[in-house]
């Protein structure tokens, strides 16, 4: 059941993404992308990461995409006529490169040679829960929170700095 769901979601995600990147209209592209992210969030949930799934929906599909929308509207990019369609000549190198990367990655990732035993005695395969996540996050990666919070702060600082009006 879950397995089937996963494959369906995976296909939905990929198709939505493909649609997103081929769509001329930025607003439509964003909508497709949000779809894709929703599907991905469900995949995360299936993979025992409910918090990440939630964040994906809230931050990615919500905040970030809305930010994109804002900017698109602010810059008046909502007209598909103005957005030029990429030429095939331009697409070709992109497709070739991405194709090779994909092929190479598939080659490397599909065949797992030998599984390595996990470190430390914890070889028990159990599903993670939110508590695990929280403990890991705050016990082990406290500094990371500091760093990322600083980074967010400086994102604000930077945006404010750039947004400031120039002196006449």
């Amino acid at each position, binding site marked *: 059941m879950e397995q089937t769901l996963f494959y369906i979601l995976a296909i939905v995600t990929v198709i939505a993404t493909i649609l997103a990147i081929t769509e001329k209209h930025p607003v439509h592209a964003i909508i497709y992308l949000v779809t894709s992210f929703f599907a991905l969030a469900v995949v995360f949930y299936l993979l025992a990461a409910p918090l990440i799934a939630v964040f994906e929906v809230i931050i990615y599909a919500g905040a970030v995409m809305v930010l994109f929308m804002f900017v698109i509207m602010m810059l008046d990019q909502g007209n598909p006529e103005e957005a030029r369609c990429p030429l095939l000549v331009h697409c070709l190198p992109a497709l070739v490169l991405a194709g090779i990367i994909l092929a190479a990655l598939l080659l490397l990732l599909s065949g797992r040679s030998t599984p*390595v035993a996990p470190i430390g005695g914890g070889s028990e395969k159990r599903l993670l829960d939110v508590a695990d996540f929280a403990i890991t996050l705050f016990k082990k990666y406290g500094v990371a929170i500091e760093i990322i919070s*600083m980074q967010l702060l400086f994102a604000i600082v930077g945006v404010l700095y750039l947004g400031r009006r120039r002196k006449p």
Partner: protein
Amino acid sequence: MMSMADIQIALPLLILAIGALITLICGAIGRKQTTGYLIAVIAAVGAGLWSMQTPPALLAPGLGLSASGLTRLFSAYFCFMAAAVLLFSHSYNRYRDIAGEEYPATILFATFGMVALASATNLLLLFLGLEAMTFGFYILAAIDREQDVSSEAGLKYLLMGALSAAFLAFGIGLLYCVRGSLGISEIMQTTLAATVRDPIALAGWGCLLIGMAFKLSLVPAHLWTPDVYEAAPPPVVAFLSGGSKAAAVLLMVVLLVHVAELGTLRVPLFGLALLSMLVGNMAALRQNRVRRMLAYSSIAQMGYGVVALVSIQGHGLQAAAFYAIGYGIMSLAAFGAIGVLEANGCGAELDDYRGRGFTQPVASGALAISLFALAGIPPTVGFTGKFLIFAAAIRTGENALAILGILTAAVSIYYYLRLVAALYLQRGAAEQTESISINDTVLLALSCVLIILLGIFPAQLLDFLKIQLL
């Protein structure tokens, strides 16, 4: 629970973070410009001094931070570099009219990222530190709002950085999948040991390397370098090459120190090194814009750094670490001097530097010394660094790389000399006197002295690195 020892280890980070915040607050409550710089310098120096003292423990397991000798050395180095850059910036920014507390705060933030990177014991901190540092530089590159090109450079840097961050994250993710842990030593031993050749790990390494190639500005991910070098304020560029690149080298060193030999990674690194040395040095030959020229030179210099990384069996990491520090000091002197020269009305073109050697002796002297050092002429740290690198390469048996490297180094002499020749051998248009602040003079002199001292007496630093990297 955080123990006292943990706090002591984390203190440099804290100092930098708090310093940045205070700087921002000072700016917000509208104090004088200088106050921000002062606080920032004090914070940087304080953090640097603190990292120099011996901590009670070498590791803070609860924080994922280490305080090994290497960490402390580089933390202190980054902090002092930041302090120097701040001091240089003070007068340059006044000349360029870059106002606001954001600048010193961002410098501190970038330093914060570097120190975090240097002390990280797991890949998450490493990644975040790296990204935080780079993030700081996105802002710094675009900081000069009087110039259109400045935000252009910022955007270019940002887009490339984000792309490379995606690669990095994907790569780290793959590595994580292999072992289920983010600890550096565990991952390294699993993914690079000669016995294991896990395809997933290889894919991860591929992505990781190209991400690092961007941070080190290696060909083919180098193209942002000339643009950023050209548009960003010189002190920022100094920090970029002396801090950011040194941090990236350090990252590689920290990763590779856990393995005895490179195995599969050798060929890609070899290619990166070769391409960077060739392309960097050649492209710089005919450059007429000084900063672009030095940008290409920095691409080539990082190529040498990678040669050292490839030569891991012949004390290459030691050479790489030494070279990173040496290169940092050289670029500090070079771009510090360029900043002073530009503040004195020097343009971007090579021709604008003509005859400055005699009208502006201090800055030009420092620039000339750092150029000779970059060119690898003894008795400078540049020479000693190159010497160590090539010694490592030959010890490892990378003779082809060594020979090609040395030949490109010979080619590179040309463009360094072009600038020196412009400074000293050509006549300038107008005779004008140099206006240079006292702290700039002291800093330039200090960095020149360091360049030469480290060139002549590298033994202590080397021995220290040797012990750390055994």
